[in-house]
């Protein structure tokens, strides 16, 4: 292959390139490779140039402008353009920003540390076109290269390193975490792939990150995704995560959370902080959360959500479907529809599956269970869990003193409580 003749027998890695002397065409030492600058945005993964440490400071030269001499050093081509590295350049510097840092392996859904970066030459008709980042090495192979570099001849080391299994993450699955907000915007880090993961997986990843990096990831995620992930995070970490955000950002995320989860979270925060967050919230969501905050945390009302679907007891299947379409909360959590009278008193419960099987004009009250299970708002959560177990419930309506429907406890709330009580 053409590119092999260009720069050694194998594709280079960051470690093998760092520290390599660079001479100009006449053999005079110009400097050493200090870092590798990689483009962002449309140029993502493309090595924009070698960063040289020279007497004049840090300079940038295109990777295609150097040749590898038999001794292993780099030689600048006669036409090479060398320019100073500017502070406003939008580059990820592989050694400074990536090596030894934690990154998110979006494919493996976890946080890993970078040992080395594998690069690859692309050439056209024997002419090197560009150098790209192929994958990030997080396993033993990269570690061996790093540890023994300089202690063994380059060729021997490479042979030795190749004996170790490689653990690599392709560049497109790498998610760089940048803590500095200004630079984050500049580098155009969006965490798009991360946002597509399951919220529980994002939560696991967040738990593995240090505070500043958690904040960096949370604030770049879409509020809805951030909210769903936050709900899945361990309670004591939830609090410290929200504490590190500004009230405005926190309010944006809390608004998108399930009201019962939001209330649980706010109850754990210091009062001044939770008030500041409530202040920033949408009036409607705020009222819902505030109502829930009034209840004891270990009661049915403290565990319930106020997002449920209730229709008049005279409604038909068609009406129920309409109500579901208009539902603003998390639709997947709905397992049954509640029938209420004019004063919000609960009259019946209809499982979703029966609605799916019925004709649109069927009245809901004929589909419902003749007897349904419900509980009082101040019932202890232990009692709630027992009801779920005894009657094999998926959801449990919660009534106030006047038998009015005020909320619903869902199975996952009960599971969370039972697990926390272990």
């Amino acid at each position, binding site marked *: 292959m053409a590119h092999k003749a260009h720069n050694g027998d194998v594709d280079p890695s960051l470690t093998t390139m760092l520290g390599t002397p660079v001479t100009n065409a006449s053999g005079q030492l110009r400097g050493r490779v200090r870092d590798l600058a990689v483009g962002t945005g449309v140029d993502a993964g493309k090595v924009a140039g070698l960063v040289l440490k020279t007497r004049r400071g840090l300079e940038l030269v295109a990777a295609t402008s150097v040749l590898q001499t038999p001794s292993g050093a780099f030689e600048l081509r006669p036409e090479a353009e060398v320019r100073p590295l500017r502070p406003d350049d939008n580059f990820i510097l592989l050694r400074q920003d990536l090596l030894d840092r934690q990154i998110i392996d979006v494919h493996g859904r976890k946080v890993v*540390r970078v040992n080395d970066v594998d690069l690859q030459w692309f050439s056209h008709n024997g002419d090197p076109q560009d150098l790209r980042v192929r994958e990030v090495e997080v396993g033993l192979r990269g*570690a061996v290269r790093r540890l023994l570099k300089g202690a063994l001849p380059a060729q021997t080391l490479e042979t030795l390193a190749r004996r170790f299994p490689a653990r690599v993450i392709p560049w497109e699955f790498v998610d760089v975490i940048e803590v500095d907000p200004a630079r984050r915007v500049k580098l155009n880090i969006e965490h798009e792939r991360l946002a597509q993961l399951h919220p529980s997986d994002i939560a696991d990843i967040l738990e593995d990150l*240090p505070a500043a990096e958690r904040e960096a990831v949370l604030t770049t995620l879409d509020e809805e995704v951030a909210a769903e992930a936050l709900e899945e995070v361990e309670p004591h970490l939830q*609090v*410290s995560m929200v*504490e590190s955000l500004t009230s405005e950002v926190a309010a944006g995320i809390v608004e998108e959370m399930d009201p019962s989860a939001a209330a649980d979270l706010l109850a754990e925060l210091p009062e001044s902080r939770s008030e500041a967050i409530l202040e920033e919230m949408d009036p409607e969501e705020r009222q819902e959360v505030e109502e829930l905050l009034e209840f004891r945390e270990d009661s049915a009302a403290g565990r319930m959500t106020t997002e449920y679907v209730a229709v008049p007891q005279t409604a038909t299947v068609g009406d129920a479907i309409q109500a579901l379409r208009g539902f603003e909360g998390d639709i997947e959590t709905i397992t049954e529809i509640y029938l209420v009278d004019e004063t919000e008193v609960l009259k019946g419960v209809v499982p979703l599956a029966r609605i799916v099987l019925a004709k649109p004009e069927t009245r809901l009250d004929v589909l419902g269970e003749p007897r349904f299970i419900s509980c009082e708002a101040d019932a202890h959560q232990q009692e709630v869990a027992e009801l779920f177990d005894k009657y094999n419930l998926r959801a449990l309506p919660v009534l106030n003193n006047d038998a009015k429907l005020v909320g619903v406890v869902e199975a996952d709330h009960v599971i969370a409580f039972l697990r926390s009580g272990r």
Partner: protein
Amino acid sequence: MLRRWRTRILLFLAVLGPGFITANVDNDPNGIFTYSQAGAQYGYALLWTMIPITLALIVVQEMCARMGVVTGKGLSDLIREEFGLRLTVIVLLLLVLVNFGNVIGEFSGIAASLDLFHLSKYISVPVCSVLVWLLAVRGDYKSVEKIFLTASVFYIAYIVAGVLSQPSWHTALVATVKIPPRSAWTHDYLFLVISVIGTTIAPWMQFYLQSTIVEKGVSVKNYAASRLDVIVGSIFTDIVAWFIIVACAATLYMHGQGAIRDASDAAQAMKPLAGQYAFLLFAFGLFNASFFAASVLPLSTAYVVCEGLGLESGVDKKFSEAPAFYWLYTILIAGGAAVVMIPNFPLIKWSITSQALNGVLLPVVIVLMLLLINRKDLMGEYANSRWFNIAAWLTAGIVSVLSLMLMVQQFRS
């Protein structure tokens, strides 16, 4: 007013944890032996070291706590990110060796203390090692912390033993604030001074404290409480040490018993002099300290190594998810326990070697810490102030020189 105090106390108790636990684990069998020896050989004449070592302990531990709170990263993470893989691997390798030496020390403490109750080490050590292993694997962070805090409180046994030994309080208090005259400074005395100071700050403590602070998720706003935790822990630990010295001074030294061979010796020798209760308290204290330290060290080592190398870690992961973590943890415990059970194992020689490695590693760790904590880009406004820096470098210098001296001394003897 009352309510405000109550909230304050509650807030403090909520944060009481990492700093208090770390400082207490420092009084492991090795430390207890050194303090007992100091009291048995020189009476009250070494009590003056307690105030400087408390200050040194606070200075070093406070920096770890601060770094943990501000950066949200463990010490091994920071070393890896700022100084590269090569240095990290060297530091971690040394740390594993030193800690393995310490784990052996803790298990021999378990064996010795239960031997006082006529329980053979071939029973006590395997049973305790299984208990230690299960404690971390089966418990979550919160319950483990509660167990550790309770274990810390049991150190009060030594305080009670000190009171039972009926010391001369006046002499003891004066000796605490007065450095003895020059004539007292013999070669052996100096060696013991260095030993007392050298056992106070161990490299593993810095790694352990910073990781637990991070795991607890203490925020910068609550940092003041964490600092209090460190300070209270350091003071309590050294009060315990003070009472160990006093108890041995009032009994063994007064009756001309002289030097002891190991920590359980002190308990044995105390029986005819201070009575059955003092013996029981000393023996129980030693067991508690050994078991406690044996639970903390292997776990902390496994965490620190895996974090620094970027391997999966944590007791909430399954064995197959974090194999390196569990293997290291298991090998440290099983290996430490196995070594203690080898008949006629040269324990003293081994403990000297591990102390020596300690002396090599400690200066490296402290210097790395000081370099990190002065980095404005990491610490921002929480970097060391100029005066704190002077105090910190001075402490680091003295502690490092002393631990190196201790190492040289031990190799000579």
